């Protein structure tokens, strides 16, 4: 369990960089891509923390994110295409 600090530090840096893109992004699609990346990174972080807490029930939250996270993005994409 020694390397856990390194992993968490890299994940935090990645989250802050994508937050910078959410702030700066010239168009809305840039912000949406950055939030999508944040969702994927957060799913990995949840799985890591489930191991840290040593309880298997925490994996279900990551499962829900993996299954449902793309629905919101698809709603945004349909709006941008002019659909819905």
């Amino acid at each position, binding site marked *: 369990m020694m390397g856990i600090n390194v*992993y968490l530090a890299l994940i935090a840096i990645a989250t802050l960089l994508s937050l910078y893109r959410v702030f700066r992004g010239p168009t809305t699609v840039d912000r949406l891509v950055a939030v*999508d990346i944040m969702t994927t990174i957060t799913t990995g972080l949840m799985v890591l923390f489930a191991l840290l807490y040593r309880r298997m029930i925490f994996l279900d939250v990551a*499962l829900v994110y993996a299954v449902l996270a*793309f629905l919101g993005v698809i709603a945004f994409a349909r709006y941008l295409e002019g659909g819905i």
Partner: protein
Amino acid sequence: MNAVSALGELLVLFGVFFYFLSALGLIRMPDVYNRMQTATKSATLGSLGVIIGTGIWAVGEGLHWGWITKTLVIAVFLLLTNPISAHALIRGAYKSGIPLWEGSVVDRYREALEESREEGEE
């Protein structure tokens, strides 16, 4: 510190490195299409590494073997749904009129759309 959990930690390190790389690509690339290229799929490979690596690590730590199957299910669902959202997003970006980067070489999609529009008018 046995061999199995060392393998798991190696996979986690690999995945976390790709997370960092995808965020860096999000910062450095010039337009939204190239950002999507470098970001979305590096993040998918990274989370594949982190999630399966965590399952192997947990089994190496002596926990229940259900960890590895459950993390496999999460990884498979992520692998199925992430490209769909990337595909929908890049198509929405193109249809909403965001221009390509000025260094782009070809744009066959615009030609095909114009062809089909002319056919529709005739």
